[in-house]
């Protein structure tokens, strides 16, 4: 087995959630069927492309498509009453479609996005993602962040100073 096949296989194994399916005109299914969203303004194809874009922008193998899909779902809802936003998102999805974005590996996708980095569609999706992904308690769990603590009495008795690997502290 060649090295490149191994690499490709490893990539598929770690990013299986990245395979986004479109079923019907406005239904997107991701995470191997673990989640689905129906769109209001975007077509299913466009939304699926933007989910891929969201993942390629903040690529976390440990996150499934639900996280990225939720952000695009939110953008779709806004676009339903914001024609300028809708046009921008459609434009972004069309650009990626032209580049056959879904067929590219992670490095290829990053290169495509780098080329459109300063465009309004990219910045809109990125801006939405940086809040939508990292303000999601499901993501906090994966990253090892415990979130609100006041209700639990803070950390005074729950490990605020429990670091155990420092030799000289």
């Amino acid at each position, binding site marked *: 087995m060649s090295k490149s096949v191994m690499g490709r296989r490893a990539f598929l194994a770690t990013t299986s959630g990245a395979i986004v399916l479109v079923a019907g005109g406005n239904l997107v299914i991701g995470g191997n069927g673990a989640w689905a969203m129906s769109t209001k303004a975007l077509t299913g194809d466009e939304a699926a492309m933007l989910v891929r874009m969201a993942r390629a922008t903040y690529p976390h193998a440990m996150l499934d498509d639900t996280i990225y899909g939720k952000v695009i779902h939110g953008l779709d809802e806004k676009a339903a009453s914001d024609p300028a936003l809708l046009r921008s998102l459609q434009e972004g999805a069309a650009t990626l479609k032209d580049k056959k974005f879904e067929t590219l590996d992670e490095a290829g996708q*990053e290169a495509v996005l780098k080329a459109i980095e300063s465009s309004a569609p990219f910045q809109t999706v990125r801006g939405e993602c*940086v809040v939508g992904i990292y303000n999601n308690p499901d993501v906090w769990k994966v990253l090892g962040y415990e979130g609100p603590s006041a209700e639990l009495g803070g950390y005074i008795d729950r490990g605020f100073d429990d670091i155990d690997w420092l030799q000289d502290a």
Partner: protein
Amino acid sequence: MAATFELNDDSVVVVIGSGAGGGTLSNELAQKGVKVVLLEAGGRHEIEDFSNDEWGMFGQISWLDKRTTSGSWRVAKDFSGLPAWIVKAVGGSTVHWAGASLRFQEHEFKVKSIYGDIPGANLLDWPISLAEMEPYYDRAEDKLGVTGTHGIPRLPGSNNFRVFAAGAKKLGYKDFHTGNMAINSQPRDGRGACQQIGFCFQGCKSGAKWSTLYTEIPKGEATGNLEVRPSSQALQIQHNAAGKVTGVLYADKDGKQHVQKARVVAVAGNSIESPRLLLNSASAKFPDGLANSSGQVGKNYMRHMTGSVYAIFDKPVRMYRGTTMAGIIKDEAGNKPERGFVGGYEMETLSLGVPFMAAFLEPGAWGRDFASAMEGYANMAGMWLVGEDMPQEKNAITLHRAEKDQYGLPVPNVHFDDHANDIAMREHAYKQGSAVYEAVGAVRTFRTPPYPSTHNLGTNRMSEKASDGVVNKHGQTHDIANLFISDGSQFTTGAAENPTLTIVALAIRQAEYIAERMAKNEI
């Protein structure tokens, strides 16, 4: 009981802004029997309204009214509509501050004499000395319950502090500890001890951290001499033909405009709004704005040399557990020009939650490199770097030519260019901050650029001579005897230290001065 005063009661002192300066001044005056109407642009959100939610609280309490930016500073690129990260609510920025309460160093009151002529810098000595300030620093520390002063124990060290301290020790630093914090390490003044909750920037849920919201303001109200009017945006300070101020035009929560008459007006709206209000109050008699015969209103804007270093280790740190900031290395705070810059800087522990880390670690960054940094979050430690920046006349708050706010008044533009001294200091601080973490095994370090300004200073500066600045050593404007400035905009220069303790000390001192002058009918 909280007082209520008539709009046409011209015996009151009107204080504009309820943060460290205005909230303290209001209470100090009320305690002396002076009647005070406190106008606060923001709403009144009590402790029960706070939540451990970074973006939620940001939306609830931040000053988000339109502002523009210009200049070469990185904030103008990363956060073009948000030059300052300050609070619009009763309590002002004492709601979200970290609590660091440091005295200035002696030389920082006379930097022109000590540093000499620095090209491009508009340096000036303060008209007061550390010796004159010491009794007021004492009273401010006692009021705030500052740890490490007045026999108050320091806070215990969190995980973030322990990494920071171990690195400091390894690097040979000598002067480091959990800081002088206005956060109760034991119950004091009717408030409990810190529960190491974190989320200090979102409003302290336990009330262990001093904020005027639940200390000065209710104490002042209890005297019967203080009326607080939240959601009251000051629009214009009015004056009479003799050039004395007579009242303040403000808009209430419904946008309805009122004039509160005043015997004295004290402005404490932070270093963007305070000069903006003076400039927006221009009249036929004062065409360049109130108290602006020097032309210095809005000029010399300072925001401290800042930056952060975050570091990822190969094992968990969980820096978010515990007080947001409680750790300081002071070894770099002095003036040691041999480092290639004048002035000094403090290194202070800091943690952000995942939501803010994503926004601030490297603003605008994306892709594999950034995502992998976020995946190291649990193993991250962090510090903030804060040092003296150079006042420059061109760094200024000005009125925007075209953009207007909801009341039809010009919005402020905030212009800032880093001085060469600021850049040299930041480079040194980044290097030393990274070294602290590398000394204890950091596998990756980040030079995080400045956040929107939390320390906004200098735009109505204090000066001996009326031609050099806006206010005298008591914060009284040189031009108008019954108009005072009571916030950090009075700062002649910025010093390396977090400014709140000095703002509070100046407010205590100013309250004495105002009450005495009123008693003698001099104002």
